[in-house]
């Protein structure tokens, strides 16, 4: 976005600063954060049982990588997550669009969707474990149910809020019923779907962890939970770091897809 400013000039307006400044600031920022952390724990202010030394954390992580534990568990979680979330998208978008477009479909499916939407999904976890045991299927269903709701509801809202004047314009220019959907309703709904998918990622991640906390023998959630049981905060924090990194990565990936699919959306900076 173009910005017009007369004075004062930026203090370090050199080309090098513009290029590397932001990275440098981030590095310094994060570096200071870990340095303070290290110091707080090393000096004994906080017990190592509550907060590990960042250096121990890194050591744990290296250990997890070397023993191959990290990869097997991450792979297990990632596979379940991917399958569950892809199912969320496959079911969530069309069902949401249909429910938004058709009163009949909304009548029929509405009660189930809203019941499921309103119920905390965690309450259903024991049920799926009862049915499917500690299998990947149980986890995939929990991830799917967690992720599908925001996608479905958002897609439905998108269809319901389609700008009437746009529909009117399309009709005046001779749009058939089919064209009204393909040329107006669907493109209008894309940003809503995107928002739903982004929220769905967060929910599905929660579903993933919950499904693994409840008696699992594999996965990121399992490692975190086991580290807690074993009073091993270094491993726990290492895994949390892995989780944070993957979540941030997923959300960033989503944003870049969004920019590509919906470049017309006005960027708002408040």
């Amino acid at each position, binding site marked *: 976005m173009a910005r017009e400013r007369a004075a004062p000039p930026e203090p370090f307006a050199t080309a090098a600063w513009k290029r590397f400044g932001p990275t440098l600031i981030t590095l310094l920022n994060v570096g200071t954060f870990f340095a303070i952390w290290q110091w707080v724990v090393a000096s004994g202010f906080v017990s190592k049982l509550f907060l590990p030394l960042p250096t121990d954390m890194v050591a744990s992580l290296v250990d997890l990588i070397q023993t191959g534990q990290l990869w097997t568990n991450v792979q297990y979680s990632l596979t379940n997550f991917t399958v569950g979330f892809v199912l969320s998208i496959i079911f969530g978008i069309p069902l949401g669009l249909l429910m938004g477009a058709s009163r009949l479909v909304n009548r029929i499916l509405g009660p189930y969707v809203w019941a499921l939407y309103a119920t905390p999904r965690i309450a259903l976890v024991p049920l799926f474990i009862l049915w499917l045991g500690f299998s990947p299927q149980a986890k995939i269903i929990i991830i799917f149910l967690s992720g599908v709701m925001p996608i479905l509801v958002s897609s439905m809202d998108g269809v319901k809020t389609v700008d009437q004047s746009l529909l009117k*314009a*399309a009709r*005046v*220019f*001779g749009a058939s019923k089919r*064209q009204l959907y393909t*040329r*107006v309703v669907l493109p209008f709904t*894309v940003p809503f779907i995107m928002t739903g998918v982004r929220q769905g990622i967060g929910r599905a991640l929660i579903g993933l962890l919950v499904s693994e906390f409840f008696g699992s023998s594999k996965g990121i959630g399992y490692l975190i939970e086991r580290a807690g049981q074993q009073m091993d905060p270094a491993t726990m924090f290492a895994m949390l770091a892995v989780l944070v990194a993957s979540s941030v990565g997923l959300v960033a990936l989503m944003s870049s897809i969004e920019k590509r699919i919906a470049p*017309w959306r006005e960027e708002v900076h408040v």
Partner: protein
Amino acid sequence: MLLGSTVMPESLVASGGATATLPQRATVEARDLTIEYERRREKTRLVALHGFTLTVYAGEFLAVLGPSGCGKTTFINTVAGLLPPSEGTITVGGKPIEGPGPDRAMVFQEYALMPWLSAWDNVAFGLDLQGRLKQPGGRDTVQRFIELVGLRGFERSYPHELSGGMRQRVGLARALVTEPQILLMDEPFAAVDAMTREVMQGELERILAQTGQTVIFITHSIDEAITLGDRIVVISSRPGQIREIIPVPLPRPRWEYDTKAHPLFVPIREHAWGLLQKEVQGNVARGG
């Protein structure tokens, strides 16, 4: 520029009917038209137009004035084929209107541009829906109209990157490019500033001089109605009926001179003003 015409007597200005200089072939004909809306929450029906009879002549520029809520938009939507008449008939070229058709196009007050389409794609929107974009020359036609409305260089901009006036040019081009016989315009310049509005009025007249389309143009501005119209229809407050039809015999092309300085301008303006004032007062008195 000095005009040789003499001042029309007030009585002639005030009398209804088309002037002799107009082409007299009817295109849109509304006979005893009644349009009602279903009000779901109140469980009543609202009569927007009642006993509405009007003939629009081919090639004329018909300006429509009336108090807010009198049914102007309702009428233009009916002509567009978006609303079926509750009673009475409405025909285009002698055939009853059964829905939208490529012979009619509309320019909307609120632009109604697709936010996900570039200016170029928005202009091409109607042509594409009608399957005419892919025909030979289709794309050239779009480009020609983009240039006609002065949007060259902005083809790839999205609506939110355009000013209000530019958006309305896109809306205008989108309608013109389908080459309709009848152009429906619902307060198209209401949301742009006075200067832009004047420029766009001039451009519209210039474009119409080439295309010779019939225009039904809703406006809240008496000045705009006189500047653009061959006739001005004044509609009564709800339920809308024709209060009076005022011919505007100012010579064309009007972009070449200052219409406001024409000796007929002020008498027509005063006459229209008087009519509208009565309608608005009646409207307010009835609490509508």
